[in-house]
């Protein structure tokens, strides 16, 4: 399987990558662990799967896009 992973804003800068790919994951939490090399997950990180907000225990399918980002500050 191939999962597209994206990081945004301060999280992108902290992690040091904006996009990567991972394989062999079952949940969004696994995606984080795999993409960040098991970095500690800040408590306020948000996750979206295929452009929709999701949970860290949400199941991931082949071809999904998973994005991690800090609290939003638009508007």
């Amino acid at each position, binding site marked *: 399987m191939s999962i597209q992973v994206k990081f*945004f804003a301060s999280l992108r800068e902290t992690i040091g990558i904006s996009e990567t790919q991972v394989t062999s994951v079952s949940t969004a939490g696994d995606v984080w662990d795999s993409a960040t090399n098991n970095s500690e997950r800040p408590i306020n990180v948000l996750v979206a799967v295929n*452009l929709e907000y999701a949970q860290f225990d949400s199941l991931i399918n082949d071809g999904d896009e998973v*994005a991690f980002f800090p609290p939003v*500050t*638009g508007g």
Partner: protein
Amino acid sequence: MSTHISLQAFDPWRAIAEHQQQSALDKQFGATASFVGTMRDFNDSANVSRMVLEHYPEMTQHYLEQLENQAQQKWELLDSLIIHRVGEITPADPIVLIACWSAHRRAALDACSWLIEELKHNAPFWKKESGQNGDRWVEKNTDGL
């Protein structure tokens, strides 16, 4: 219904007027409510001279269109328009415009108020401010008070 992400400065009042002209709303709507969020030159007391607005383009478009659909389901709206600026922004620049059209006033007013709250809480935009103390990511949006 219309959602635009704007890389350039935009004039919110002209945008409303043009949207209204282009749509076939004439003579049917009785109420237009709008909200414009503008960059102020201060935030948490540190002078802010510039700002960069980052977003998650695909999700932004998807999320804002969903919001407009939800608003249409909750209220009897005739039309709505959302414009959100991204990229480099300077003080006094409009950041966001929300406009809602309806036959009667409460639908437009309540939908407009709801849309800006939802957008502020959930739309994937992030502000990075530059000022005399250097750059910093805005950590969270205020509750609007």
